[in-house]
């Protein structure tokens, strides 16, 4: 599940909500109906006492913020960090509400966390921490109440934490309750396709956008910032599809080749050496410039896909961007100012809330399969992922045409509209 762009250290919830407040005003939503969304439904804090390996006792703080349950059970990540702030969880929970509504998956948003430095815990200390947190939240957790997702997709430790959560809940309820967490390892109710779901989703959205805006010919060229689970997988998938991947980068630097990089070789090198540094080229004599990461972003291409860090494109470099379309694979890679500047120049920006929603859809699919008690084939997963991405894209385009707004505004409006409608249909329970 997504992490929200932290725009303002002081008040992440209010900052994140401000763009949805604007969307609500633009839609002309009744202020009363929207008011309920400006506060999370419920916030839970628990003490998590853990016996450490040396016999001492530590007490950590655990939180769960549940934003809105109009559209269905809550869903959202379990984070673990020593700097975790409640207001960040609020922002993340609300962001998840909007994202699920936009993707038309039947959940409301939540976010939880344990204030702890996992690097300083032994494996068994971490296990006791997660289990005690889960036990304290038992009245809240469940497939139809609140579903926990990993903080990082396809991360070993995050997956292990989900497995402990699942086991703790299952032992308490006395049956295997797999659907209560997602991001589980395969063989424990995890789903096929989870690992590159974001990249596959990005590809679907990219194809739809290219044909909708009619911007490239036969072989589109793309520059990708980031070579991890999002950027790396996207490069591999698009390379196989015949795209010219001109540039790719990691924190150490960027590779650039006008005629296209040999992506399988690049990824193999990185897998072996842990970084792109000193990549020797593909051996066919074509030039592979090693350039600075920032410079790569400004090289000419049809598509620029920032898939690494927030605020990669700001007012400092927006004017130098040489792409026709920006595909936000990362969370919040384009700052608000840069967004305005790019749209004035006629550059299309596909917003993160839509573009990188593949992992949210994959979490949903895992939950569905757990409920059905049957795992889907990979082709079924892919076909259904395509269905959800396409339906969301088409609905956003429809709303954009109707209101003449940016894609980002249209996506936010669609999300607000769906949540407000569901809340008002259900009415106020008393």
């Amino acid at each position, binding site marked *: 599940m997504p992490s929200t762009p932290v725009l303002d250290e002081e008040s992440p919830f209010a900052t994140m909500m401000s763009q949805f407040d604007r969307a609500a005003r633009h839609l002309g939503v009744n202020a009363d109906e929207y008011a309920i969304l400006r506060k999370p439904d419920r916030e839970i804090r628990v003490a998590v006492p853990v016996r450490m390996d040396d016999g001492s006792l530590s007490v950590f703080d655990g939180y769960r913020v549940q934003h809105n349950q109009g559209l*269905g059970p809550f869903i959202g990540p379990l984070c673990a960090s020593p700097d975790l702030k409640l207001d960040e969880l609020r922002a993340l929970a609300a962001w998840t509400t909007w994202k699920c509504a936009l993707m038309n998956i039947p959940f409301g948003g939540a976010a939880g966390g344990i204030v702890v430095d996992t690097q300083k815990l032994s494996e068994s200390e971490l296990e006791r921490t997660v289990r005690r947190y889960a036990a304290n939240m038992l009245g809240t957790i469940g497939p139809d109440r609140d579903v926990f997702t990993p903080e990082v997709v396809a991360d070993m430790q995050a997956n292990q934490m989900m497995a402990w959560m699942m086991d703790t809940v299952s032992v308490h309820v006395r049956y295997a309750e797999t659907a209560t967490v997602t991001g589980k390892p395969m063989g424990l109710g995890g789903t096929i396709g989870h690992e590159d779901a974001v990249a596959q989703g990005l590809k679907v959205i990219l194809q739809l956008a290219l044909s909708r805006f009619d911007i490239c010919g036969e072989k589109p060229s793309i520059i990708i910032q980031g070579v991890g689970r999002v950027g790396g997988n996207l490069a591999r998938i698009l390379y196989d599809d015949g795209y010219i991947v001109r540039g790719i980068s990691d924190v150490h630097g960027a590779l650039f080749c006008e005629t296209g990089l040999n992506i399988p070789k690049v990824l193999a090198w990185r897998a072996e050496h842990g970084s792109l540094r000193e990549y020797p080229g593909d051996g066919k004599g074509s030039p592979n410039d090693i350039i600075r990461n920032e410079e790569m972003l400004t090289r000419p291409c049809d598509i620029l896909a920032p898939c690494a860090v927030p605020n990669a494109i700001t007012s400092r470099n927006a004017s130098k961007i040489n792409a026709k379309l920006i595909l936000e694979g990362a969370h919040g890679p384009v700052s608000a100012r840069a967004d305005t500047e790019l749209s004035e120049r006629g550059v299309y920006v596909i917003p993160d809330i839509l573009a990188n929603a593949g992992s949210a859809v994959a979490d949903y699919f895992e939950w569905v399969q757990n409920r059905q008690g049957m795992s889907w084939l990979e082709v079924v997963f892919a076909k259904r992922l395509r269905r959800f991405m396409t339906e969301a894209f088409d609905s956003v385009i429809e709303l954009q045409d109707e209101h003449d707004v940016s894609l980002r505004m249209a996506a936010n409006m669609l999300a607000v509209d769906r949540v407000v409608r569901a809340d008002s249909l259900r009415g106020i329970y008393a």
Partner: protein
Amino acid sequence: MSGGTVVANEQSLQDELNPFLAMAKRFDIASDQLGLDHGVREVLRRPDRELSVAIPILMDDATTRVFTGYRVQHNFSRGPCKGGIRFAPDVSLDEVRALAAWMTWKCSVVGIPFGGAKGGVICDPRELSQGELERITRRYTAGIMDILGPDRDVPAPDMNTNEQTMAWIMDTYSMHVRKTTTAVVTGKPISLGGSRGRAEATGRGVMISTRDAMRKLGLNPAEARVVVQGSGNVGGIAAMLLHREGYRIISISDMYGTVLNEKGLDMPAVMAWLREHRRLEGYPDADHMPNGEQLELPCEILIPAATENQITSRNVDKIKAKLVVEGANGPTTAEASRALDDGGVMVVPDILANAGGVTVSYFEWVQDRMGYFWTEDVVNSRLEQIMATSFEDVYQMSQKRKVSMRIAAYMLAIDRVATVYRLRGVFA
């Protein structure tokens, strides 16, 4: 099995045109044909459980009124109970009982895993504000909470209740059990776990039944004239879909009048006119006539899709159709049925022909349980499969036992329930 409480005295509605008595009569004929033993017959005649609840409501003018609500669960041998909730001033326990039994047979004939139920609140929705209706719905739901649930009893909309009512029931139930429980009702808005294709499901089922019946009769759709009584969710949609399949719709009606065009109505234009003007009156490309004689028009296919008791002993002799497909509930009286059978007219009975609605309600429940929602194409193709299979089952039964399609449908339905009843045995 079969534990229940009866909370009101029996007080049968005595009426020649009582469609529920007509159903009881057909139940007896079908049971005789099946050679059903006395005990099982007694079990199936009586509802498994009846619940009556008082519904105190604080009205907008600060007075308190107490309404009465019912929920009758006729039979849950084949699965959780399923059936609508109606809000009307003339709701009576007897009517609710009969409708509950009707739902048992309807679910059984199309083979969906539900028993029958029905509920109602005695109230006049026209005199109630939206807030009062919401409070009645929520208090009624809380009152029958213990017998509701996705695996117990799943209500649906009926007379004067709609998507909004279902959303309130879903919310009330979910808040009580402290988890999202969309599968507790069907007929919800799509955003709250409703199914695509539900609005047109009954009409689509009628179209499928008509098409399959035509194949059995060996008639050519292109040469068939169709008369449809009613132009709402059932009649209008059925006429539209049949038109798309190449049938010639020569007449359709609403509460106020009938339109007629021997060359065939342009159904998309008729439906567009209805959407805009809300009645057929003034539709340009057709002749207009009062409603009385529509059913007697010369035609091959007659689809009564409006209300009960339309084909009676008074007009049955003048019916010229070769095929009658009952879109409405109980449009043909028992006496008229016999006359149609004697005249060699094929009647596709209501419990089969209009079961498309409850079938897609079942799909909604299935989708809610797994949390994954089908595209409209998937819903339609699965509906097609269930309707076509059920039609074939009923047709084979009618051929084998040399009975009408209606009696065959009842036999099939009763036999399925009775078989399950015997398999499960009497719980003690």
